[in-house]
């Protein structure tokens, strides 16, 4: 796809078709690939000190921790539940 913005300081992230990969391009010419948009923006915004080797890969722990519970602190959220018919 063509570039749409024509400014001098445009940062671009292309989602590469047919893949889960993102390709980031800084206005200074630096380019990299990654799979995480958060890491990609951090890498681009580090301009002019883009970390060598691209964004770090997401850490993969040997064993995933259990997902956290969502703690509801507002009683209004709880009172909204309908009663259970007897």
């Amino acid at each position: 796809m063509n570039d749409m913005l024509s400014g001098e300081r445009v940062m671009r992230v292309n989602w590469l078709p047919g893949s889960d990969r993102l390709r980031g391009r800084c206005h200074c010419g630096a380019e990299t690939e990654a799979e995480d948009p958060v890491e990609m923006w951090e890498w681009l915004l580090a301009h002019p000190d883009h970390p060598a080797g691209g964004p770090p890969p997401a850490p993969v722990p040997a064993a995933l921790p259990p997902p956290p519970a969502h703690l509801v602190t507002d009683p209004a959220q709880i009172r909204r539940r309908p009663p259970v018919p007897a």
Partner: protein
Amino acid sequence: MTSIVRDQWYVAAYGREVGRELFSRTICGESILFWRTEAGDVTAMSDRCVHRRFPLSQSPSHLVGDTVVCGYHGFTYGSDGVCVAVPGQTRVPRTARLKAYPVVEQDSFVWVFIGDPDRAGTTRIPRAPWLDQEGWTAVSGMEPLAARASLLVDNLMDLSHETYLHGGYIGTPEVAETPITTEVDEDAGIVYVSRHMADAECPPFYAKSTGIQGRITRWQDIEFTPPCLYKLHSRIAPVGVLPNDDGTDPDAFHVEVVYAITPETETSTHDFWAVARDFALDDDGVSEFLRENNRTVVLQDVVALDVLESVIAGEADGYQELSINIDTGGLAARRLIAKLAGGAEVRQPASR
């Protein structure tokens, strides 16, 4: 810590909402009174009488020529917000004046500047010319949202949600399946997200308004100028029909979907929406269909975001989000808004 970006222009109303009746709306937490002078100019000032804080929009407050008379004790203010008369005495206290807001009427909107008025003249007002331009027909409305503005920004920057939340209206499988390209212009303060679908199902919103039968080439190009104005440049054409090399595009249908995202308070938002088209310009049936259909889509978002606001407000801070490729544009918008909140300036274009 406020989430509202100050020293910015915000859409406060459509021009058609403001006339010779007193009109009030809360913008970024400030209660503002709007009315038109006899010459037709829109004025904006604080909606509280300096005397005892009676709302000037509240009956029996009323206009007399180019002054507004408080309905409680008769304090009278000019179009610049300065008090010109108080009851029973000739001396008007020097402090009897309302905060006046810079206001500009443009592209069918009434824009108001929230922040230091001295910065209004050098701060960009983004354009949406199709809403009031020869060759285009527009429908528009506003829905109150009981959710913070950032939730609407997230919503609009990632249109993959159309497939799930707006199926049967504007969503088809291809929207969520098609990769996006995201661009950010730091100087101009623009986030641009493109999703070009070469061969897609035509959703009812476009099938019924354009009359296209069969599959389409569908382009969605989002242009967001934080914090307020969001534009979706939508191009619809039969499969394989592309613009000419010279840029002309006579065989496609163009729809400009415009949103103005104006905080009412920290946790509520004015969701201004408009749909402009360059076809069937005089067809009232198409206008009515697009008005009702887009309003339905907006209300689907309103229901979802109102629930989300209530959930967020009722839960502790600090939950980890998970972002994937579809969020690339939304993340860019959030960062640009945070930058503006930190006091960054957006370059004023040479003309507006």
